[in-house]
């Protein structure tokens, strides 16, 4: 994408000279570094409930965030008005973080490196609503048709098209156009007036609408949600206490996101408040474990051509054969730690200060057959689907909530069990990984990661793995 063709130049008449002068204004009090983050976001959402399309929304939000870094300090201001006066005002406010003589460097903005991971010609947001509304109607019909015990279905579809432009005082100008779409289906099942159970499924990515018509259809997500709800009708109480836990492939990779990913974000480590602080080079997992955070996988929900600081994303090795290798760095942390950005600086919107975040976090495949892994367990829990997770960075304790899991008895899956939270400790739990399957799978594209009040889309993935010891929070 060329600057001159961007929405910011074409619709808002912003020139390179303008950007250079805003950056100069930002450093007028002597900061070390400044950047401008322009965002123009179109979004729409459609939802169906009780077989009626009850809600359809579309909107636009736009703005610019101005950041000035002076040593360890950050000044930030934003404006939802892209007029020159308002941008200048934001630049002056952000500039106040520094106290010194103006650094009127000559900024020559040149377009920086970026990937081309989502060459989407027509973003879903740009298609006719009549096509998109069909997706939720199809999901509703399919989930209801799956089983007579399904009595309530909700389906929603949401997409967005985000145009971003980052200009930095280091002279780098990057532009990106980021499409994103997601479907989700929730179904309730009930048998003979008994206790209802819920099932949930969803997915998407940085894709064209065709993805939902050809690859992952509404019927696919609907069947998955309905299947889970029906399966849970027979659920028994979850066990309580330490036991062997087997995670199925795909979305259970949320374990990695919580157990290690957050703890390796450089801001926490720079400050020495993470349970992983100072542990680079140490063994934090069994040698079967290699964990990667990769923002460069084509079309994935967590992928980005450039991060929200204008830096190209990368494939970063976090843990290699059990040894801690690196942190996820953004601009500020990499400056202070004298290393390079790993392309991990992300923010929810122009109104937010960027920080180190994950993209797509997964464990590389091992050599075990998934069936052999289950067969090796005399008594334990097999978890295939999860709700959210959370971590306490400092103690390293993390949880994630199993929404679909089964008892393993004598190497066989027996009964489904009710929702239970699993708890572990980041630098410890992966040491108990004793088998890793050959079936690495990435999730279907539904993850949202929250940190300090900012939400960003992410992906996870994992092969089937066996953890010899984890605490399961059931009642039985």
């Amino acid at each position, binding site marked *: 994408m060329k600057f001159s063709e961007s929405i910011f130049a074409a619709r808002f008449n912003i020139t390179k000279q303008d950007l250079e002068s805003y950056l100069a204004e930002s450093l007028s009090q002597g900061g070390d570094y400044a950047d401008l983050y322009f965002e123009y976001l179109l979004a729409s*959402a*459609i939802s*169906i*409930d009780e077989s*009626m*399309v*009850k*809600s*359809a*929304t*579309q*909107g*636009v*939000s736009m703005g610019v965030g101005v950041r000035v870094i002076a040593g*360890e*300090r*950050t*000044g*930030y*201001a*934003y*404006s*939802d008005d892209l007029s020159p006066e308002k941008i200048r005002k934001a630049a002056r406010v952000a500039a106040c973080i520094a106290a010194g003589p103006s650094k009127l460097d000559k900024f020559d903005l040149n377009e920086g490196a970026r990937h081309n991971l989502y060459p989407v010609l027509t973003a879903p947001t740009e298609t006719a*609503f*009549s096509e998109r509304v069909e997706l939720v109607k199809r999901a509703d019909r399919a989930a209801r048709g799956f089983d007579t015990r399904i009595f*309530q279905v909700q389906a929603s579809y949401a997409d967005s098209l985000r145009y971003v432009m980052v200009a930095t005082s280091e002279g780098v100008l990057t532009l990106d156009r980021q499409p994103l779409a997601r479907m989700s289906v929730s179904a*309730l099942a009930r048998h003979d007036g008994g206790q*209802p*159970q*819920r099932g949930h499924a969803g997915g998407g990515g940085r894709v064209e609408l065709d993805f939902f018509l050809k690859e992952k259809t509404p019927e696919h997500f609907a069947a998955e949600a309905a299947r889970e709800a029906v399966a849970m009708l027979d659920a028994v109480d*979850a066990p*309580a*206490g*330490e036991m062997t836990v087997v995670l199925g492939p795909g979305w259970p990779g949320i374990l990695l996101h919580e157990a290690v990913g957050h703890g390796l974000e450089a801001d926490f480590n720079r400050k*020495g*408040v993470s349970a992983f602080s100072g542990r680079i080079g140490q063994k934090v997992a069994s040698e079967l474990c290699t964990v990667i955070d990769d923002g460069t996988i084509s079309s994935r929900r967590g992928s980005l051509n450039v991060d929200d600081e204008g830096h190209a994303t990368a494939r970063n090795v976090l843990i290699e054969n059990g040894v801690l290798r690196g942190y996820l760095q953004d601009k500020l942390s990499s400056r202070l730690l004298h290393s390079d950005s790993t392309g991990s600086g992300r923010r929810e919107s122009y*109104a937010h*200060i960027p920080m180190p975040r994950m993209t797509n976090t997964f464990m590389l495949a091992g050599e075990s057959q998934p069936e052999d892994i289950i067969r090796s367990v005399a008594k334990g829990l097999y978890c295939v689907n999860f*709700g*959210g*997770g*959370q971590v*306490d*960075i*400092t*103690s390293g*304790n*993390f*949880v994630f*909530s199993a929404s679909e899991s089964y008892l393993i008895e004598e190497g066989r899956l027996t009964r489904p069990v*009710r*929702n*239970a*939270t699993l*708890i572990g*400790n980041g630098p410890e739990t992966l040491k108990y990984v004793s088998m890793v399957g050959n079936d690495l799978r990435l999730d279907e594209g539904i993850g949202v990661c929250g940190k300090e009040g900012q939400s960003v889309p992410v992906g996870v993935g994992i092969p089937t793995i066996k953890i010899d010891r984890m*605490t399961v*929070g*059931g*009642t039985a």
Partner: protein
Amino acid sequence: MSENHLLELAQGVVKRAQAAGASDAECTMAEGDEFSANVRMRELENLKEAGSRGAGLRILIGKKTGASYTSDLSEEGIARLVESAIELAAITSEDPHAGLPDTDELGALEGDLRLYSPDVAGLQPGLKIDMAKRAEAAALAADPRISNSEGASFDTHVGRHIFANSRGFAGEYRSSYCSLSTVPVAREGESMERDYWYTMARGFAGLESPEEVGRRAAERALRRLRPVKVDTQRVPVVFDPRIAQTLLGNIFEAVHGTSIYREESFLAGKLGQKVAGENVTVIDDGTIPGLFGTSPFDDEGVPSRRTMVIERGVLKSYLLNSYAARKLGMKTTGNASRGLTGNAGIGHGNFFLEKGVPTPEQIIAGIPNGFYVTELLGFGVNIVTGDYSRGAVGLWIRAGELAFAVSEVTIAGNLKEMLMNVEAIGSDLEFRGSVAAPTLKIGEMTVGGR
């Protein structure tokens, strides 16, 4: 900000939507100024300051609805806002229950609800930074084991909320808040733990002192050091007020009108029935001056009110907006809530558990062996079934006293049984947010550990 500009603009949007073919329309506008200062290890770390505004529109054409929002309040932006909402009504379904509240349900509470304090907007940046520095310094000075910090922050927000609809309602109110928090890190040998404390008020004068915030945060972090993972067992569990508050949040989700008409709550169909112990009374009150859940009208233009939700264990009312009310054949309880976008959802006013008689110390003193929970992790609450399973941190109760720190355990049960089994409710009810509860004791839950 000009006093009436946005209110007139919102009314204008409603009229334009009607002129474009909407049979009904409602427009929400919000504007606000935010400021935040973060300090860490006694130095200023971040300063953030900005103002923003936006508008949301929802229209009906007959029984079909469409919605749009924008941050662009220019003539062109407003034209697109109206056009977008009208366009979407073409793809939604006829919903016999769609609509606005009845005209006689609309209105606003009179009088000063003390939601806005003029002192907040006038606070100087230097003072705000100093407040954060003092709170962190107090935490760092509390004990040599407080060796690190995730910092302290002072935040302010001043805003205006505007709502107008085609049934003649037009209202606005200003609000403000300021808050101060700090997150110290305690260390002893290999054990590293953090915790936090905060104070929040509508006006600067309502804040606790920075020294008090720092001291309490440090105390909370220190008592978590050197935690033990206990054996799996069934014991009485005491929730400190910050944790009891999350349980109230779960009750709110269970009486949420949307969950009720969809039958996806364990309290659906239980109106008039005993759902909790006789000592449990839960109230939603959006009318208490100065509190965080207070407003003159809800997000559909219906006056806020006080609703008895659970009275001495009996479920008395769900919380409803006009849509959920029509679905259930009831009346709105004035609990409509929304951002700028989409159909109104359901929110709460000040949603709280009525306090009891014993002090927290008295409750703990009566427990020979139990778990006092001070932090929960994760989202393991299923409102459909009531299944409850969460990661927990806290202190073990031995012979009526807080004996040692516990972590990396879970607590599990079912909300239906937990509510029936509330054995004690403390006298320490405080409103630190819009959901509040005193210390409470659940007779027995499963603690999952070794």
